[in-house]
């Protein structure tokens, strides 16, 4: 449905490319996010291969905790897909519940991460201990910030879905936040494999 508009004459969303304006905007934003994480993960890869010696991540990082965290984020991706499907089917309440569940899983991910951080800082693995520390905290820190942003927007969209206030114009927002959430999960999958395990 074309986005109805409150402007006098021109319809707000004239879809020249056939792609919904919100979706195009979200994918354009994700393209810039890809470049952001390219710079981060790329710097890690290049610095690591250029370094003479590199500590074994297993000694510093609690791999089982991170594995659990990965499962948490994957399940949140599933609940996100279910939420979008529910919203498409028009079942606002179920969709709102699933959005809340996704947001909660996001919070669980963040709490596990913070607990992991202070556990590591406790036994002297800080951001300036070595290059692995700096890169680990920097990359997972920025990823955490993105997860936090995702959780907040999930809650905002959920309140819109719950009150049914989502006009035609904002119909796309549920799928938009879904795309963003899957992207954040995808980045964690790459980070987990490259940074924490190898």
């Amino acid at each position, binding site marked *: 449905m074309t986005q109805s508009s409150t402007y006098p004459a021109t319809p707000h969303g004239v879809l020249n*490319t056939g792609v919904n304006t919100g979706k195009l905007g979200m994918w354009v934003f994700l393209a810039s996010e890809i470049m952001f994480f390219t*710079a981060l993960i790329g710097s890690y890869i290049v610095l690591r291969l250029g370094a003479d010696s590199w500590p074994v991540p297993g000694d510093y990082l609690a791999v089982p905790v991170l594995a659990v965290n990965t499962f948490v984020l994957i399940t949140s991706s599933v609940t996100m897909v279910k939420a979008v499907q529910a919203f498409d089917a028009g079942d606002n309440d179920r969709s709102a519940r699933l959005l809340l569940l996704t947001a909660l899983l996001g919070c669980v991910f963040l709490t596990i991460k913070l607990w992991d951080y202070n556990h590591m800082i406790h036994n002297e693995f800080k951001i300036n201990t070595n*290059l692995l520390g700096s890169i680990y905290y920097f990359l997972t820190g920025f990823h955490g910030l993105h997860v936090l942003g995702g959780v907040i927007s999930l809650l905002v969209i959920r309140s819109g879905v719950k009150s049914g206030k989502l006009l035609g114009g904002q119909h796309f927002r549920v799928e938009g936040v879904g795309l963003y959430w899957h992207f954040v999960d995808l980045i964690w999958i790459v980070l987990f494999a490259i940074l924490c395990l190898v």
Partner: protein
Amino acid sequence: MSDHHAPQSLLSRVFSTDHKVIARQYLYLGLVGLLVAGLFALMIRWQLAYPGDAFPILGNLFWGETNGVMPPEFYNMLFTMHGAMMVFFAITPIVIGAFGNFAIPLQLGADDMAFPVVNMLSFWVMFLGAVIMTISFFVPGGAAGGGWTAYPPLSGVANYGVGHGASLWLLGIAFAGTSSLLGAVNYVVTTLNMRCAGMTLMRMPLAVWGLFCTSVLNLLWVPVVAAALFMMFMDRTAGTAFFLAGPGSLFAEGGALAGQSGGQPLLFQHLFWGFGHPEVYILIFPVWGLVGDLLSTFSRKPAFGYKATVLSMITILFLSQIVWGHHMFTSGMSPLLGTAFTFLTITISVPTAIFFLNWLCTIWRGSLRFTPPMLFALGVVFVFGIGGLTGLFLALQALDIWLHDTYFVVGHFHFTLAASVFFGTFAGVYYWFPKMFGKRMNQSLGKWHFYLSFVSLTFVFFMMMYIGATGAHPRRIADPTVYNFLGPFQDANVLIGWGAQFLGVVQLIFVWNFFTSIRSGEPASDNPWEASSLEWVAPTPPPHGNFPVAPTVHRGPHEYNAPETGERGWLTQAEPSA
């Protein structure tokens, strides 16, 4: 979306989501940035003209202990802030922020940007960046002093002589980058998805094409520099060492980098220039597009080879992202990479030559009206001609090893960046002022402003190139009299100094013209330049929602003197042919 008919509260007016209000906000921020950074330029040139003497007014005000002579760290701060504020807080707000926000929705026949709230956010994030930059002046140790390129380890370590302002500087630039990113998302989606009926991609004015290419480059490369700046921020404050290297003794206890372990300084240069070269194209693309439109509008004939110009722009869009290495020929980058980047860089001159030729063919057999926008557009053709051609020297590896970090480079990028974008800025302001403010600017003052700026600017930047090439005058040095081989070039520095002061004073003509016309210029008609693009179809100044009746486009953007236009000689894009 805010309700349009209820009286607008102050809050909704300040944080307005109307693209025209945001355009004006960007314009004012950009003009302030231009003024401040311009003053820095005058101070730099005065210091180089008279290095040993006391600085006229500020001397005894600030530097009593050196009885008025400017200390070198202040000089470092001057050219750092001159570069950074010009690029991020003067040119970006005006050329991309103001022109983009004002022109894109109007020229595409849309009612507003695709995401109005994100658009409002993009201005206020830029404003926050500007506030942080201003605060960084008054932090102990003064503002950043490591050059606008902020190479580590100088800018990456707190106690290497660069003030604490550098940490705030990094945040300020990161905010300005985020603002460009948010704006770029808006511009790309609006250009792709919000064109009115009949406005195909090949009927868009060239200015919109320029802004589209700018936004794509912004989108892809601003995040990369934001990552690099955050890394350096962590290096300065959190004790990480992404870009810091050095002997073991440094990292041991008591060393300057105690407790950190080595990264690589070259990594920052690659990340920065990976963004840096697309950045200089980000700044020039809107001007290329605007000049293409203006030359056609004021020669009363279509832009020559519209499709070829658009194709060249897209080619340059790709090429500009794979050539950043020519900034690093002497920086320790491997010579093999240097040769690869030389051959990649020289290919950019082919698409540039094509659209430059199209500019000249546009004014060929035209009927030229020398209004201020046209004069500034012709000025851009001249200065970008010089700038583009001197770029060839610096693309070559062996020649760049001689010319790098001399005033030849400074002269080159001031021609392409400062002169072309400077004239492009004024061309845009004089062209859209009637539509933006509903009043006309004084045309003869505009012409005087052009002639005087053109003469002094060409002289100043040409002299820079001369002393750089002939005398190998190193860049960024506070006192050229230290070196004997620069002796004969000191009076050239004095000439450049006075030329720059004259250029600065001449800008007052514009400032006077701008503000008096806003207050008491005579009202402007809907289409003062008899141009055909859609923004002149909207009423002056355009209401919220821009077009009372949705326009439908019937022809290309510059169909002047086409057979179908009959006696009047021009038809706007929205008028059906008779």
